[in-house]
């Protein structure tokens, strides 16, 4: 009996593979190293976030008296997302408009028209986005109730965040669509008409006798050539060269 037990135990040991003495394969070794490196990187990143960015950068800013006053006043703001999104767009548009107006290689009129177009897009987008958000506020409210009721099975913290984010997401979507898609498409013809009327009112050299294609020399043509070259070009008669592609399509 004793012998049988020992034999079976030996058999078990003999048949069970042992990984202790074996070296891991190259793939496993590489994967393990990769995992360790990823963990270290992640830890370093988290450390950077908590101890550098949060503790040394953001916290000192928020702990100032000015920030405290600003936070107090922010209690009156109900729609921080919309205002911040608008502010971002105003700054960005300002940057581009400024670059356009100060571009030495651009004709002054062209620069003004381009800047006007940028301004129009901004104004229309902002007014449109606020109007749409205002008019669908009740609908969003109802949908957010439904959203909350349908997702009751989620943990309360997650649901609270998502419920809070529902209306924010709707507003951001409206802003993105207005600024990125609807307004630019709508404003272009308006800007074109304004620029047309501006140009018609302004005295233009050698206007008469120009072929239609030449008259359509686009803003690009004006914009892309150095200002110094303009008088030289102006002396040459309008060739029968086809206008650039966009002008042709008009």
């Amino acid at each position, binding site marked *: 009996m004793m012998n049988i037990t020992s034999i079976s135990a030996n058999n078990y040991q003999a048949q069970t593979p042992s990984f202790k003495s074996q070296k891991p394969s190259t793939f496993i070794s590489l994967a393990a190293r990769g995992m360790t490196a990823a963990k270290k990187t992640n830890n370093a990143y988290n450390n950077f976030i908590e101890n550098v*960015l949060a503790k040394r950068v*953001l916290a000192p800013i*928020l702990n100032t008296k000015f*920030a*405290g006053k600003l*936070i107090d006043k*922010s209690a009156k*703001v*109900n*729609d*921080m997302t919309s205002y911040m*999104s608008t502010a*971002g*767009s105003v700054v*960005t548009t300002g*940057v581009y408009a400024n670059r356009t107006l100060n*571009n030495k290689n651009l004709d002054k009129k062209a620069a003004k028209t*381009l800047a006007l*177009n940028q301004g129009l897009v901004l104004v229309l987008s902002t*007014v449109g986005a*606020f109007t749409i958000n205002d008019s669908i506020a009740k609908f969003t*409210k109802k949908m957010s*109730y*439904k*959203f*909350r009721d349908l*997702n009751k099975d989620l943990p309360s913290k997650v649901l609270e*965040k*998502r*419920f809070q984010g529902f209306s924010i*997401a709707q507003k*951001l*979507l409206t802003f*993105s*669509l207005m600024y990125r*898609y609807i307004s*630019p498409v709508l404003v*272009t*013809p308006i*800007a*074109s008409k304004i*620029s047309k009327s*501006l*140009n018609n009112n302004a005295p*233009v050299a050698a*206007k008469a006798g120009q072929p239609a294609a030449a008259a359509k*020399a*686009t*803003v690009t*043509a*004006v*914009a*892309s*050539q150095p200002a110094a070259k303009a008088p030289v070009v102006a002396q040459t008669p*309008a*060739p029968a*060269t086809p206008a*650039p592609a*966009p002008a042709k399509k*008009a």
Partner: protein
Amino acid sequence: MINKLPSSIMHPYSLLNATAPETKGLTAKFLKNKTVGQICETAAKNPVVCQSVFSLAVCCFARPITNMFTTPDKKDASYASCHSISSGAIGFLWSLALSTPISMAMGAMLKKPQKYFKPSLIKKLYPSVGVIKDAKTGAEKLMTDAKGHLLRQNGTLLSRNIEPLKVEADKAAEFLKKHPDLTIDKHGVVRSTTVFQTEHGKDLKKEGKKIGCALQKSDMTPITEEVELGIKKEQNMASFMNWIPDIILAPPRAALTIAMIPWLLKNVFGMEKTKKGGDKKPETQATPVAAANTAKPVATATQPTTATTVAKPVQKIQLASIKPAQVSNNAKGGV
């Protein structure tokens, strides 16, 4: 219109008290969708990234589709589409790289505010937090338990979750027996009979009666106006900190977009604007107003052009010739 806006915006905390009718069909499917949920969560945590995701979707789908349908020249359309995709991608990557760390840092700070913020700031955000004054120095210290959790003035754990307590209709009678000093409204929300809801310090009334404050689900503490304002301040602060770097760093982002788009078009999409005859055409000629709306003005001016050979003695601007589809792919906000 804009002035009316604040009044029309829903109050996130009062919303918690209401209930919605049963929803079925596509709307229910949409609202239950996991992606929709995740987008909402991202919008709450990191609105900047959320907006850039929407912009990316517009730039990658809406604009290219519009271009394809409205531009007769398919080469021009595909060029404009690639331009749009590049612009959206740069905006998204920029926001992701910039806002994610800030959003994470804000999350860490709001998780343990006592570790990062001064007591005065914490008191603004959580007015019911307990504060002890040092008898010798007069300095304020926050009340915390052994684990470092914030406490109320009465020594109970401070809960920052203002989800209201609700009781189902069949359990209402039993609940009221245990808590005779409370009431339950028609939505099942438990309300105090001693602490009342206020707005700007004045009592709110419904049918001539004062409305009792809803109670926090976690510890049945009344959700007063002060508490709501504190949470609102906290959310606005997080939102503000998330947006401000994005706004301040808009100029370098614009410069990056200007610099990167031609490179992306050439090296990622293999696109170079060519004339119909097959010769290379300067990129700038494709979208004149595009130039107005985006980074293009600078790119336009600096790139070599055939304009000298084509240009007429006309100093006119003919934007009427531009089609909406060609309107620029802007870096952000219609510019």
